[in-house]
């Protein structure tokens, strides 16, 4: 095999130093098919959200492993709630969307959920019309990914997606999506001890 060919061989490229840009259109068609497939097999909004979320979880579990390996020189295990959330905000988000998350907000103690990620213009909602009255579209897929990551990092949690409307602008185009995280009580107890 001559040298020039070797240079262009995909197997010989360094594993970790690739840019992960892919074509949005191509990806959207694939994603659209996936959503249609999921949608055909359910008969109510809850089951649809549940199904998307489960698919997301399977991805999240794998993504955590993969991101740990790629993102850091010396992969380490996150022990604190704050650290794992920051890890998701920076590294996981970068891996999926190519940029860090827009916002990570801690909710007051009296709320049922503990934290939420805030996002506008997510790819999963970019081309979709809201099918159900709650306007949720495909956001449960991403909340499933977050849940998968948290679960596999040993922070069992319930993650749900909700649309957040600002009072000053009522147009449905400017709605943001929040991914609300509710940790298992055991996680919080452990976090207090550390």
């Amino acid at each position, binding site marked *: 095999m001559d040298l020039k060919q070797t240079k262009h061989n995909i197997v010989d490229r360094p594993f970790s130093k690739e840019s992960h840009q892919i074509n949005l*259109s191509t990806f959207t068609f694939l994603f*659209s*098919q996936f*959503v249609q497939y999921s949608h055909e097999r359910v008969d109510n909004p809850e089951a649809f959200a549940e199904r998307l979320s489960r698919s997301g979880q399977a991805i999240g579990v794998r993504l955590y492993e993969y991101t740990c390996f790629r993102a850091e020189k010396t992969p380490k295990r996150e022990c604190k709630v704050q650290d794992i959330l920051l890890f998701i905000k920076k590294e996981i988000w970068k891996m999926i969307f190519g940029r860090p998350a827009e916002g990570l907000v801690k909710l007051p103690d009296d709320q049922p959920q503990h934290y939420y990620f805030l996002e506008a213009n997510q790819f999963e909602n970019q*081309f*979709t*019309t809201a*099918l159900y009255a709650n306007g949720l579209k495909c956001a449960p897929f991403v909340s499933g990914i977050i849940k998968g990551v948290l679960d596999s990092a040993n922070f069992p949690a319930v993650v749900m997606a909700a649309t957040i409307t600002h009072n000053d602008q009522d147009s*449905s*185009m400017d709605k943001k999506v929040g991914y609300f995280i509710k940790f298992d009580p055991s996680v919080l107890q452990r976090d207090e001890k550390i």
Partner: protein
Amino acid sequence: MVVYSLYIINKSGGVIYTYFNQKASPQTKSNANANLSIGSVFHSLFTMATTISPVQNSSGIQVLEANNFTLHCLLTVTGTKFFVITDPSHPDPQALLQQIYELYCDDILKNPFYDLEQPIYRHDKTFVLKLQEMIEK
């Protein structure tokens, strides 16, 4: 430069989308049934034109000219037809059709909740807004 209306017809002749430029002709009321028949009649005319054409593999009606309007049609490879009714002074309706076709591919076909060949939802806001901007500018 004025565009009066736009029709999108699926490959079996059903009208899946209509748009009326209210600014250009405020007195036109959009009547769903009338629109359906106009679209279907055009589809039939188009098919007849291809059949009676003396040349093989005719591409059907592309332009229809009248005193006070012109009709331009774009037939896509999948059989979906787009046609716009414009003022005769409009410089390039074919380019406009091409842009609308692009918008349709981008915003409608990527929507997982859109069923092919079915009418386009009125509440697909991004599509409607972009289309409005394109037609009324």
